[in-house]
Structures are given as structure tokens and as C-alpha cells.
């Protein structure tokens, strides 16, 4: 009797760590932050509710607004560049080329490196005078200038370059896996119809890669929202506050500026685009699960 009851209980006991993680860390943490964003908390949590005052303050804050602006510019460029470069690499690798294995290894290795290492390498490469700029000047292009990293209006683009270098191999790998799943007959049929190769890829193959593209888009978008390490390593948010991003704004206000209330309001704001993106994805998933039965 007892043994049977134990067996029935075991799965629940086994899933206890997961339940605690979900309820305490994820749900509890998010609710705690939501609550804190409505309080006047500074160094310590507070029970003094002040409505949406923190949000008003947040969207009055020049640094936060600049961070959002940077994130929008960075996000759009990063996602587009990664997608285009990754897709092109996958398509070109898929042309039966020699040395495919070597090329794949070369395109993906930066993804194994941390954003910190990535940021530091590119900081060195882009350092005005001594990096690429200095090298090209020595080669005889005396007037050559590439000082974006110390330029207020251009510094964001250097972060794009470094992170695209790090992440586009991932897009290549996922797209290539998608391409390998496509029936080769399609290429043959398109060729017989006299459709040029580039149109075959753009108008026939790309739409067939829909699920891969969606996955890649989701992964890249979450990477954009989480952008922190690369900026810390490369520019520390500078010059001035020119390359600040929301994740860094939140971290600075949590741990350096003792303004938990404001930081929490920022964190909740950051959560909105993520949830907006996840909702349709989760909806599609649950619909698929219902249509396909329990084993989906």
C-alpha cells in the first residue's frame, strides 16, 4: 500500500525543484519586480506605493530614452544584418562547395566566444590610431578614418559589427539545417522552368524556411533585449552616454545608483516587447498541440 502511494507521489517530488524555480524565481521574481516598480524603493525595497510615478520619471529620463533609442537602432540593424548574412552564408555553403566543414567551423566559432571576449577584441580592432585605422594609414591611405567607437553618433554601429560577427554563424547553422531539409527536386523543377537561381531562393526556398526564420528571429530578438555584456566590454556605455542600453541602465540603477524603484520600472518596460513577441508564438504552439494531440 505504502509503496504504491510512494510511486504515485514520486513524480511530484521529482518535479519539486522545477516547481520552486518557476514559482519563486520566475513568476515570483517578475511579480516582485512589478510590485517594486510601483513603490518609492531606493536602496531597499519599500512599501510606500506611489502609483506610476517611477514610470513617469523613467520616461522623463534622458539616459533611458537614449537607451531605448539605441536599442531600437541596434536591434533593427543587428537582426537584419544577422539574418541577411546568415542566410547568404547558408545558401552559398549549400552550393556543394569544397571545404564545407572548414567554412562552417570558421563561421560559427565566434558564437562559442563570450560577449566579453568579443567586445574586447573589437575594442582593440576599432581603437582609433592603433587598430584597423592605424594599419590602413600605414599602408598609405593617410586620410583613412575609422573612429566610430569614439564617435557619439556612430558608436552604436560598432556594437552592431561586433555582435553580428559573433552571432551570424548561429543564423547560418540554423538556416543550413533548414535548407538541408528541402527537397532537391524543387531546385530541379525551378531550373526547368527557367527561374533564375536567386529568385528560386528568394521566392520559393525562403518562404519554405518559415519555421527556421521564425526561430532565428525569436532568438535574435531576445539577444537584443538582453544586450549588456558586449556594451560593457566594448564601450562601457560611452563615449559619454552615447551607447547606453536599457539592460545596462537597469543594472546601473540596481547596483550602482541605488534606485531599485526606477530600475524595476525599466525592467517591466523591457518585459513588454518580450511578452508581445512570445504571446503569438505560445498561441501557435498551443494550437498546434491541440491539433496534433497530446504528443506535440
Amino acid at each position: 500500500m505504502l509503496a504504491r502511494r510512494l510511486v504515485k507521489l514520486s513524480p511530484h517530488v521529482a518535479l519539486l525543484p522545477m516547481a520552486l524555480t518557476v514559482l519563486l524565481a520566475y513568476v515570483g521574481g517578475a511579480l516582485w519586480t512589478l510590485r517594486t516598480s510601483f513603490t518609492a524603493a531606493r536602496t531597499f525595497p519599500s512599501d510606500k506605493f506611489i502609483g506610476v510615478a517611477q514610470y513617469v520619471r523613467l520616461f522623463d529620463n534622458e539616459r533611458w530614452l537614449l537607451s531605448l533609442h539605441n536599442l531600437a537602432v541596434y536591434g533593427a540593424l543587428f537582426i537584419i544584418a544577422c539574418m541577411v548574412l546568415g542566410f547568404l552564408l547558408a545558401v552559398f555553403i549549400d552550393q556543394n562547395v569544397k571545404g564545407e566543414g572548414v567554412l562552417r567551423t570558421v563561421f560559427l566559432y565566434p558564437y562559442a566566444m563570450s560577449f566579453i571576449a568579443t567586445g574586447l577584441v573589437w575594442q582593440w580592432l576599432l581603437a582609433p590610431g592603433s587598430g584597423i585605422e592605424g594599419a590602413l594609414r600605414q599602408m598609405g591611405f593617410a586620410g583613412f578614418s575609422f573612429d566610430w567607437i569614439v564617435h557619439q553618433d556612430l558608436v552604436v554601429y560598432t556594437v552592431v559589427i561586433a555582435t553580428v560577427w559573433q552571432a551570424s554563424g548561429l543564423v547560418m547553422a540554423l538556416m543550413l539545417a533548414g535548407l538541408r531539409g528541402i527537397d532537391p527536386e524543387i531546385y530541379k523543377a525551378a531550373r526547368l522552368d527557367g527561374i533564375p537561381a536567386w529568385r528560386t531562393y528568394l521566392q520559393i526556398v525562403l518562404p519554405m524556411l518559415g519555421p527556421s526564420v521564425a526561430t532565428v528571429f525569436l532568438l535574435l530578438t531576445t539577444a537584443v533585449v538582453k544586450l549588456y555584456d558586449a556594451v560593457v566590454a566594448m564601450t562601457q556605455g560611452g563615449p559619454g552616454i552615447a551607447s547606453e542600453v536599457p539592460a545596462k541602465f537597469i543594472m546601473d540603477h540596481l547596483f550602482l545608483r541605488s534606485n531599485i524603484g526606477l530600475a524595476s520600472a525599466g525592467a517591466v518596460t523591457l518585459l513588454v516587447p518580450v511578452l508581445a513577441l512570445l504571446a503569438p508564438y505560445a498561441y501557435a504552439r498551443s494550437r498546434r498541440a491541440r491539433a496534433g494531440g497530446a504528443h506535440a
Partner: protein
Amino acid sequence: MSHHSLQAVAPPLPMTNAAPLKRRRRVTPARLGVYAFLFSAALFFLLPLYVMIITSFKPMPEIRSGNVFALPAMATLDPWRQAWGAVSQGFWNSVAIAVPSTVIPILLGAINGYALSFWRPRGANVLFGVLLAGAFIPVQVMIYPLVWMMARAGVFGSLPAIVLVHVIFGMPLMTLLFRNYYASVPHELFQAARIDGGGFWRIFLQVMLPMSLPIVVVAAIMQVTGVWNDYILGLVFAGRENLPMTVQLNNVINTTTGTRLYNVNMAATILTAAVPLAIYFISGRWFVRGIAAGAVKG
């Protein structure tokens, strides 16, 4: 994933005529274009690695006067010695963090995946859905409440704290990997073990775990790489004594005043990237498998 190997033959190049068996490619302009593109892309990807390596062997005067792309004229190992002195503590800290932060999440992920796939207790799938969604939420949302809870429990800023945080944030991916792996195991196998009188833990330990080696390898690759490359969690939770290598590296390079020793910096950066890069180069396709398995959420 499973039909991947069947598709090993790449689709034929669109612009050449399809002679089915022995086809010899003529060198067409299009073909040259393909190689030109791939070659320039490879240069772009290799350039930082090349510059990192050669810079780490140059003495400082050569860096100041020379060209960033030029090979070292007088190669020296001094920067490497200095770099190891600067980040070796971080290296051992990262090892101390990475070992339990890999073993525990894999074990929990395996148990979760097994329970979710075969026992399906009520409500477990909802829990799992929330866990997966959690993987997409920026850590900034959860970081302060965790700091607060751990400070109250008196473990904040310690090795157990950073390990616990890695367990929490590694759980979505680890659970997903094992759940999907066990979903491909025939249910009859589980039924047979049940009929033989196997209980929850016995079936897990004697039937499921022994056949999980491939996914354990994939999970270990993913988790070690993720933990080793983490910066933000180590910075916040590890405490002064246990700062991981990434944090120490960034401190050495970005908060040191005075002349920048680029050669030492690059050597230290290579040292910090060495573990995940070694895993990547050695594991090869397994690494890609891990990415693919982790990317297909659900």
C-alpha cells in the same frame, strides 16, 4: 534532426546542368562568385582571431609603432605570462563554478524531462510552459528579487549562490533538451518497465539514464559554454572571492588605469575564450546539434 543524415547530399548547384552521376563542374563566373563570397566572409570571421593571436606575441613598442595586421617581428611570451598571472585566479574560480553548475542542472533537467515525458503529473505541462517562457525573459527582471532572497538566506555573494543561479537560469534549456530526447523514446519501453514493477526512480536510473548519453553530452556542451561565458550573473552573485574569469578579464582590461598593455589584454582574452573554443573545436557537430536542439523551443 533525425532525418538530417539522410539529407547529407546537398541540392545540386542550380546553374549547372544536372548530369546525374559523374559531374565535373566547369569553372563558371557564378561558381567563382560563390567562392569569392565565401572566402571574403571567412576573412571577416577569422580577422579578429588572427589579430588577437599576433598581438599577444608582440612586445609593446612594436604594437605602438607597428601595424595591427603585421606578424610579430620579435615574438615574445612575456604577455602570456603576465596575462596568466592576471586571470589565473578567475580561471580556477570559473572551473569551481562550472563543474557544479553543469552537473546539477543536467541531473535536474534529466529528472524533469523524464517526469514530463513519461509520468505527466497534473499541471506539469503548464509549469513547463512557464519555465520555457522564462528563458526569454531578460534576467534584469528577476535579478534583484533573487539577490534579496539570497541575502535574507545569508548565501548571497558565495559559490553556492552563483551555482544556484546557474541552476535556475539553466533549467529551461536543460529540461527542454531531455524532454524532447525522451519524447523520442518508444513509450512501450516505459510500459514494459512499469509492468515489470519498476518505480519512478528505478526506471529513471536503470532504464532511461543509461540510454541518455548522447543528450547528456549535448547538454554538457551547452551548459559549460553558457556558464563559462556568463558575465552578468557572476558579476552579481559570485562575490568578490569567486569572480569568474569573464568578470576578472573585463576588470583587468577596462578598469585598469595607465598605459594599456594590448598584448597582455589579448593574451588574457584568448585565455578566457580558450575553454569554450576548445569545446567547440573538439566537439564539432555536437555543438551544432546542441544549438539546433535548443533553438527548436517546444
